[in-house]
């Protein structure tokens, strides 16, 4: 394994000065001073119009008629939109959605019509006057009944839908995509195993709960130019999907401009395109007028992507020495009414559902199943959080059954560099064993602790995690870099600052290469007209991918700087280096030329003429070793994932034996960041992700009634953590086994930090009480009931 820096980015002294330091966020002042502008904060003048949406009250129904006459006559109404205005499909990976419903509605909350009015209040009032007649149909509300024999087809035209080549829709079923992995001989391995454990785990749906709701302002001007200001993780992908979906109106990519200021949290919920397409489409009906569409908190819950629920049937075979020999994992995903994005969650999970283990015989079936619940989609963890709950619960149970320590069992089977992955490619360098050991040490694994309180017991748990970015094999990033007169730098990229610290990390990477301090580098949120391409800010890939694009731009700029010096002073390029914002020379110690002296105006030569000029550079990165083509029956033959990030989570918790109340006393999380470009920001991801993950297992979940209506679409009934609901102590641990192709060795960590949270609680609850809870969330009520049940048997 190499630890050399790629692309010759290593500084002269050998010591990194900027990368690896906990630099202060370059957006910190903006956010703490109130200067940070979010979409809803932007002013659009007195011409701004407001939109409100009419939504289906039924989970499944045929639209018989829509009468908009009363709404059209209402005060302040400018225009009404229905499906008839836009009979166009769209979708991220599979085109199965319409902008507004056409003949059928398939979930409670699906958009049927939109009202554009002069004020928000008038739009909302008029929306209530639109009369929609429905023929109500029987909804399919869980994935198992949707795949039962004779189930009605939610999308009868599935076989005609356009989709990416790595999806395999099952015609005449509700299975929109089936990801299969077949490796080795699972049947034989189970027959020969010393011990086989088979069980089912259930995970409900979850909401992202970014504190900023979705909001979009769209303007289609008199020159047929569509500009969309939007709270999005994906400006270029939005531009692409708007241009494709609205192509029948004559729009092309150059006519569509997406501007994305600061975003108030994403977590996957603002990836791809969801409600924004309605705003963009409606704006085309009122030329020259900007139209604002802002989701209420309720809509934020029921009509954006939700994290998909899953029923996981898991069978694992082991030998008495603890060697895992076979895994069979069947994942039945409740993917919702439209799977244009969610089907790729299913795909990603299917590819990696063995978890971070070396497994010679594998049967994975990951089924993307249409149901009449809101569309599933990306959520931090992208399927991995869901299947790790059962998988890591299972690993503890197996270790206990064969009499092995749970940590030792995991160490023995943990996947390491060079091991073969489920789809045949080879595992990247990883610090998994170090992560396990440091996590175990942080919670004093193996040391039994007794509570001082006779009513409570202490439990400890451990769970491993892994995740690869899930993205098209040719997802790419690009960057522009330019110097200013004072030697400061502007960098243009199109990744999004979601809070993770992306802008700061890009500044650190460029600053390291160019010897410029972070405070002198400005990186801003994108505008697709001006900033170069980025696929999306998802998949925990931008530090790696966009970071490489920025590193390349910085290296290109450095080369141009050296060329000017060479032209004027004659020093050979390879004798030059950058230090403290100046060009220096290895063969002439007296030479030092500050960057600010020439990066715009150039250098004057002896005859009075000038050389050089503004230093500008660009960089791009696209992985050239990935390939999503594989055999649909076995999943073999491709190289769909770029690399995995791994780690371990451990907790010490205290449980009240009477009430089931759980206090997380200590939580430790080790993640292999390859290299932490900014350790403070990595720790921020560890703390934030861990708390978000703990909430999914301790109390959050979406509750639907028997008609498919969400019962808890607000923060009163869907509790997210407050400042009180955090562990007493969080121990972040950064492991750094470099990713050979990463910028300074870095790989992504953003999503990973919540993946281990659910199973680690399940394992610690078992450790404390001897009860195994196999469905999420593990609420106080569920624990109390399990205690009672156990005492009765």
């Amino acid at each position, binding site marked *: 394994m190499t630890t050399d820096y790629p692309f010759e980015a290593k500084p002269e002294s050998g010591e990194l000065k900027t990368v690896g330091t*906990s630099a*202060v*966020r370059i*957006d*910190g*002042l*903006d*956010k*703490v*001073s*109130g200067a*940070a*502008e*979010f979409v*809803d*904060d932007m*002013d659009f003048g007195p011409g701004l119009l407001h939109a409100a949406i009419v939504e289906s009250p039924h989970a499944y129904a045929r639209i018989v008629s829509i009468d908009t006459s009363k709404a059209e006559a209402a005060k302040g109404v400018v225009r009404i939109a229905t499906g008839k205005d836009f009979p166009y499909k769209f979708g991220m990976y599979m085109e199965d959605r319409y902008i507004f419903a056409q003949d059928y509605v398939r979930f409670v909350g699906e958009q049927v019509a939109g009202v554009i009015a002069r004020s928000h209040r008038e739009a909302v009032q008029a929306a209530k006057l639109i009369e929609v007649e429905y023929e109500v149909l029987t909804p399919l509300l869980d994935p198992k009944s949707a795949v039962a024999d004779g189930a009605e087809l939610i999308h009868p035209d599935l076989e005609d839908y356009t989709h990416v080549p790595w999806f395999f829709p099952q015609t005449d079923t509700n299975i929109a995509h089936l990801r299969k992995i077949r490796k080795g001989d699972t049947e034989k391995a189970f027959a020969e195993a010393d011990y086989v454990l088979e069980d089912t785990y259930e995970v409900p749906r979850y909401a*992202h*709960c*970014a*504190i*900023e*709701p979705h909001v979009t302002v769209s303007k289609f001007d008199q020159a047929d130019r569509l500009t969309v200001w939007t709270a999005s993780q994906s400006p270029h992908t939005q531009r692409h999907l708007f241009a494709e979906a609205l192509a029948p109106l004559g729009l092309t990519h150059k006519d569509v401009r997406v501007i994305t200021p*600061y*975003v*108030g*949290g*994403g*977590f996957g919920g603002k990836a791809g395109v969801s409600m924004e397409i309605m705003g963009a489409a409606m704006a085309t009906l009122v030329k020259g007028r900007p139209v604002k569409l*802002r989701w*209420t*908190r309720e809509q934020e819950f029921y009509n954006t992507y939700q994290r998909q629920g899953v029923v996981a049937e898991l069978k694992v075979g082991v030998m008495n020495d603890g060697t895992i020999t076979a895994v069979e994992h069947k994942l039945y995903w409740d993917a919702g009414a439209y799977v244009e994005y969610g089907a790729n969650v299913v795909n990603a999970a299917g590819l990696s559902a063995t978890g971070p283990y070396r497994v010679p015989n594998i049967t994975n079936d990951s089924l993307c199943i249409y149901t009449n619940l809101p569309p599933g989609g990306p959520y931090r963890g992208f399927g991995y959080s869901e299947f790790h709950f059962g998988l890591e619960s299972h690993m503890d149970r197996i270790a206990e059954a064969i009499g092995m320590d749970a940590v030792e069992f995991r160490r023995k089977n943990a996947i390491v560099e060079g091991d073969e992955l489920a789809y045949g490619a080879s595992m990247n360098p990883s610090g998994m064993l170090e992560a396990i050991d440091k996590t175990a040490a942080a919670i004093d694994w193996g040391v039994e602790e007794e509570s001082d309180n006779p009513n409570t017991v202490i439990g400890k748990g451990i769970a491993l995690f892994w995740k690869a970015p899930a993205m098209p094999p040719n997802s790419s990033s690009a960057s522009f870099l330019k110097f200013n007169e004072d030697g400061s730098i502007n960098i243009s990229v199109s990744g999004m*600052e*979601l*809070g*993770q*610290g992306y802008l700061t990390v890009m500044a650190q990477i460029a600053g390291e290469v160019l010897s410029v301090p972070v405070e002198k580098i400005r990186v801003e949120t994108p505008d697709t007209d001006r900033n170069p391409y980025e696929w999306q800010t998802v998949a925990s890939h931008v530090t790696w991918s966009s970071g490489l694009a920025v590193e390349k731009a910085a290296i290109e700029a450095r080369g141009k700087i050296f060329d000017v010096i060479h032209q004027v002073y004659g020093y050979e390029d390879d004798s030059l280096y950058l230090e403290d914002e100046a060009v220096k020379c290895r063969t002439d110690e007296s030479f030092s030329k500050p960057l600010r002296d020439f990066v715009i105006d150039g250098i004057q030569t002896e005859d009075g003429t000038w050389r050089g000029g503004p230093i500008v550079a660009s960089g791009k990165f696209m992985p050239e070793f990935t390939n999503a083509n594989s055999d649909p029956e076995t999943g073999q033959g491709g190289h769909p994932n770029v690399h995995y990030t791994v780690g371990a989570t451990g907790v010490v918790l205290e449980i009240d034996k009477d009430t089931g109340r759980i206090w997380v006393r200590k939580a430790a999380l080790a993640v292999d960041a390859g290299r932490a470009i900014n350790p*403070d*920001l990595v720790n*921020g991801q560890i*703390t*934030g*992700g*861990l*708390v*978000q993950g703990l909430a999914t297992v301790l109390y959050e979940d979406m509750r639907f009634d028997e008609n498919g209506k969400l019962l808890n679409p*607000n*923060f*009163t009934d869907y509790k*997210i*953590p*407050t*400042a*009180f609901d*955090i562990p007493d102590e*969080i121990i972040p641990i950064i492991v750094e086994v470099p990713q050979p192709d990463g910028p300074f060795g870095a790989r992504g960590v953003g999503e990973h930090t919540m993946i281990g949270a659910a199973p680690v609680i399940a394992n610690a609850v078992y450790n404390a009480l001897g009860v195994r809870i196999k469905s999420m969330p593990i609420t106080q009520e569920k624990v109390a009931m399990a205690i009672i049940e156990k005492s009765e048997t």
Partner: protein
Amino acid sequence: MNLTIKVNGEDWALDVAPADVLLDVLRERIGVKSPKIGCERGDCGSCTVIMDGRTVRSCLILAVEADGHEITTVEGISYDGMSELQTLFIQNNSFQCGFCAPGIVLSATELLDNNPNPTRHDVQEALAGNLCRCTGYEPIIDAVLAAGEGGSE
């Protein structure tokens, strides 16, 4: 209805509708955008402002209820540069997306005004009405505690 209100030290006289909430008037009529719209029912605390020295949820207060009162937002406390608390928030990389930050800055400012040396529990209690989905609160709590320790007794 007539509304006379002082916002960040400036006097305003406006004609508002009876149903207008303070948050919307601040944002749309006065142009103060740091209080955010997060839930419109008092759950999330993004719309927190200081009214006569005490934090309130501006989404739950009718504009006319603020008649004759004095409102302070983050813009108001930032005119003369960052407070010690704000500086510590910046240095500690306390916030991520920053959407909740204006509300949290105000809740923590109110706490420190009343209790210059709060305990961790005090800080958690003072911030319990401000939801943050990004940070897990730890780096925010740490900064407030540091501001307390550094503050005058």
